[in-house]
Structures are given as C-alpha cells and as structure tokens.
C-alpha cells in the first residue's frame, strides 16, 4: 500500500504539535495545559457555566480549535480517531469550571461516551457537577439512540457556546443544547478515502467508480455503497433522506452546513449548494444561513456532509451570536 505523503514530523508528535500550532494562532486567548492534550481559554469569567468539548484527533479544526469567546472554555483531544482518556478530560473539566458546573458536548461514540462518563464520575468526586449532551446527528443509522455525531457538532458546539455564555445554570444551558441536538440531522458521502497519519494507510477502500453514502468521519462504513452519480442526483438522494428523517416540513426555517470532509473542492460544494437550494425551495423550506467549510474533517477524505438544523428564534439567535476561536470562521470560507 502506498503511504499517503504528508507534511509531518515524527508521527508520534502529531497531536501535540497541532495543539501547539493552534495556541500560536490565538496566544492572547488560548493556553495549553502543559504536557496534556487540553486547551483552555486564558480568561473564563467567574460564575460562567463551563463548556468542554472534545474527542479523537484527526478531525481538525474540530474540536481542539473550537475554544474561545462564545464557544468552548476548554477542549480535550485524544490520539487520532481515539477518544481522550478520562484523566485528560478531567483536566479540561477543572480548567473550565468556574463554580457553576460544566457541560460536555462531544460525538456519540462508545469510546467517547465511556471516557467522558468516567471523567464525569471523577469530576463529581471533586465536587464538579457535569451534564452531557452528545452530538448524534448522523442519520446513517435508523435508531436515533445509536446515531454517530458528525459535522452537526459545528452547530451544537456553537449553540452550546451561546447557552453556556448566556444562561445562569447548567440545567438551563443543557436544555437549549438538547433542543439543538433534537433538531439536527446530517448525512455524509465519501468519494475517496483518507489515511491514518501515523501509518499513512488508507482508512477504507472504494472502487474506481464507487461512492459511499453515510460514511462515518472515521471511515466507518455507511448505509450504502453506490456507483458514482451526477452531483444533482446525489444531492437529491441526500436531501430526500434528510428531509424525511426529522421530518422537516413546509414552512420550516433551517440552517444548512455543507461540510468538506477534507479534499473536496469548494467548487464542488457550490455545485451541491445550487441543487440543494432548488430542492429546499421546492419543499418550501427556508434557509436562514449556510455555512460552508472544512470543519469536521476526516483527514484528506474526499466527500462532504449536509447538515440541517431546524431553527426556532432562540436557536437562530445562538447561531448569530459572535464568537472568536481559531477554528471557527464566521461566514462562508
């Protein structure tokens, strides 16, 4: 197998060097806990509900670079594609705690769930109350309880940042984030594989003419392997599945995220946007904002995901709330 060429030093240092690089993007705001894979804001207001986000590395800028004003107070990173261990999560929790408890937002994967749950128990032993709202937006599985968290994290972290910055209590903040989670649906498609940076090996294989609908952001298989089809047809299939799932209905107002899994061109995403908007027009669904970017990536996997978030006034206000974090760009870039 050909190693995928990358711009790296010692593969063992990837996560650590990436965290250092992120800190240097926002030195006035960000601090790394020495020796740990934890970043946190330099100044967190006393009495604020804390927000900790995190998960396996390899999806950059998610989650490590989503720390900043209006977003997370601390992030914790695992190794590539591996949930962070409980002691690291605990460090992030302690860094974020300002007396009002800490909200955990992360993707719904067995590994993350177990590690954050253990961390929550350790935090409780230290007198820090925690609440958890997992991202579970990927409609590739039928059973909502088993859904993975993919690019919808972009909105859920955004809403959580707003909630924790503006609400007085942990419970109250968590409730708004739950509403976001419950109205959030995503579906991805992979066109070419990414690779594990430590080994350079591809995370999966696709035939010369194959795509996979529902592919997970770690290269986990999706709902269906299909022949490469025209962009418009693919978008029709994805939008159909998404609309049917919540379901979204005529008159709904939504935010749309078009997330680049890594190596897909921005131009392709515009071709996707064009057809998607025609379909949403036909379905009578209003798009309040569109975010286009590579936020929840899977190394250099080519493909994208569509995320629809059904809005109410409060969720819309949460998305419009200004933030400042190295990985979170406002607008369409």
């Amino acid at each position, binding site marked *: 197998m050909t190693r995928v060429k990358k711009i790296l030093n010692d593969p063992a240092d990837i996560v650590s060097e990436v965290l250092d690089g992120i800190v240097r993007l926002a030195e006035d705001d960000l601090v790394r806990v020495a020796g740990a894979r934890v970043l946190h804001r330099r100044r967190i207001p006393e009495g604020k509900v804390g927000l900790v986000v995190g998960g396996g590395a390899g999806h950059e800028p998610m989650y490590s670079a989503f720390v900043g004003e209006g977003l997370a107070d601390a992030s914790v990173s695992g190794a590539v594609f591996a949930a962070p*261990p409980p002691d690291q999560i605990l460090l992030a929790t302690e860094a974020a705690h300002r007396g009002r408890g800490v909200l955990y937002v992360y993707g719904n994967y067995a590994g993350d769930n*177990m590690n954050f749950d253990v961390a929550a128990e350790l935090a409780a032993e230290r007198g820090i109350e925690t609440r958890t709202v997992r991202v579970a937006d990927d409609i590739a599985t039928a059973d909502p309880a088993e859904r993975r968290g993919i690019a919808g994290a972009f909105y859920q972290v955004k809403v959580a940042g707003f909630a924790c910055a503006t609400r007085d209590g942990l419970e109250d903040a968590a409730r708004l984030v739950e509403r976001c989670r419950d109205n959030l649906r995503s579906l991805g498609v992979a066109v070419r594989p990414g690779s594990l940076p430590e080994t350079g090996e591809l995370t999966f294989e696709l035939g010369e003419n194959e795509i996979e609908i529902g592919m997970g952001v770690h290269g986990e298989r999706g709902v269906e392997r299909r022949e490469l089809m025209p962009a418009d047809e693919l978008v029709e299939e994805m939008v159909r599945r998404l609309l049917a799932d919540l379901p979204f209905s005529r008159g709904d107002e939504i935010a749309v995220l078009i997330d680049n899994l890594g190596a897909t061109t921005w131009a392709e995403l515009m071709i996707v946007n064009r057809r998607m908007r025609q379909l949403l027009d036909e379905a009578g669904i209003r798009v309040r904002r569109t975010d286009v970017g590579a936020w929840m990536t899977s190394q250099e996997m080519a493909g994208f995901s569509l995320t629809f978030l059904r809005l109410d006034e409060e969720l819309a206000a949460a998305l419009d709330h200004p933030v400042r974090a190295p990985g979170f760009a406002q607008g369409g870039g």
Partner: protein
Amino acid sequence: MADRLDAGDVRERLLAVCRALQAARDELSAADREIGDGDHGVTMARGFAAAEEALRAAGPGLPGAQFRAVGMALMSHCGGAAGIVFGTLFLSMAREIRGDAIEAGDLCRGLRAALEAVARRGGAKPGDKTMLDALAPAAEAACGEPRKDIRRLLAEIAAAAGRGAEATREMLPRTGKAKTLGERALGHPDPGALSLTRIFEAFAGVDAGPRKQGASAAGATTGDREAPR
C-alpha cells in the same frame, strides 16, 4: 501441579501480555479496518507500551497492584473505547486479587466482576459483537470445575475467549463504530474480542504470535509453559 501464581510469575506474565499486544498491532488494526475505524491495534499497542513502562517503573509488587498498574496505564493511555473497556477489565480484576499470589478463585471472581463492570460501563450485552463475547466465556471457563492446575486453567480461559472471539464473526454489531454496518459486518470478528484473546493467550503463556485472523480461535490451544521463575 501448581495452584497459584506468585507475584514474580504474575509480573512476567503481565510483561508478556504487554509485549504480545504491542506485537499484535497490525493484526488488530486490520481487524478494526474491516468493521471499525482501523485504529484498534495502534490504540492497544500505545496502551500496553505504557503498561509495560508502568510495570517496569513500579518494580516487583503484589499481584493486585500489578493488575492495577496495568489497568491505570490502559485507562490513561489507550484512549478510544478500548481504554475504558480494557482498563476496567484490569482494574476490576485488581480489586479481586488481594493476596500475594493469584489462585483460581481470584480469576473466577475477577473475571466475573470485570464482565459486570464492562457491561455496566458500556451498556453492551454479550451477543452485541464486542469483547464481552470473549470475556463471558472466559469468565465461565474460570469458574468451572474447581481445584484445577492454574496454568491449565489459564490455557482454558484463553481457549474459551478464542472461541468466543471466533463466534463474533456471526454476530450483528449493536454498539461501537461497527453499528451502522449491519449485515456487512458478518464474517468479520470483533477486534476487541481478538485483543482479549491475545491477552489471555499471552498471560497463559500460549505462544500466539501474529497469525491470520481466521486462525485465532483454533490457535488458542492448551499448551503449558514453565513460568520463568
């Protein structure tokens, strides 16, 4: 016929486990590539490298403390699902191994406690295509006929785990990164169940070595090994 493993023996066996799981890296990652995200071998190798370091740093000690050291190292260094699952396994056993040597009863109580703790932590049940499907038969083997030669018992535990791992091929995944796969996961064993088999094999002194995935269960024979001291 030895009916206990003294502290030195336990230490050598745990070190052998650490080496075996580092050596199994590619086998385990390949298995995880089929139905998961392809990192299980890297995760286990990372954790057991840390465990080996912890054991060496701590020096000789009571068997329970050694199990605890391994469990803590896995908890802190594996990450992923495996860190909690296998960390919990070793920590649960540590709590049941109280004396200056390990006896059959310790193994029985330890593995039962581990089975319960892992199931509670992860919410999975036997049959869901996880390492529990190797752990459950292993615990059963450990609690079977009493007063057996402990080295033979270890080999039987390993063999039971291996059969359990082999049986996961025919199971549909209900948890973890394989869950969307459904029927496409059929025919592939669960990576964590394979890992657990390798752990028991190395602890039993069965020379497992890297092998074809299909051979994992059959390979777990009952061959005894003289403990190094």
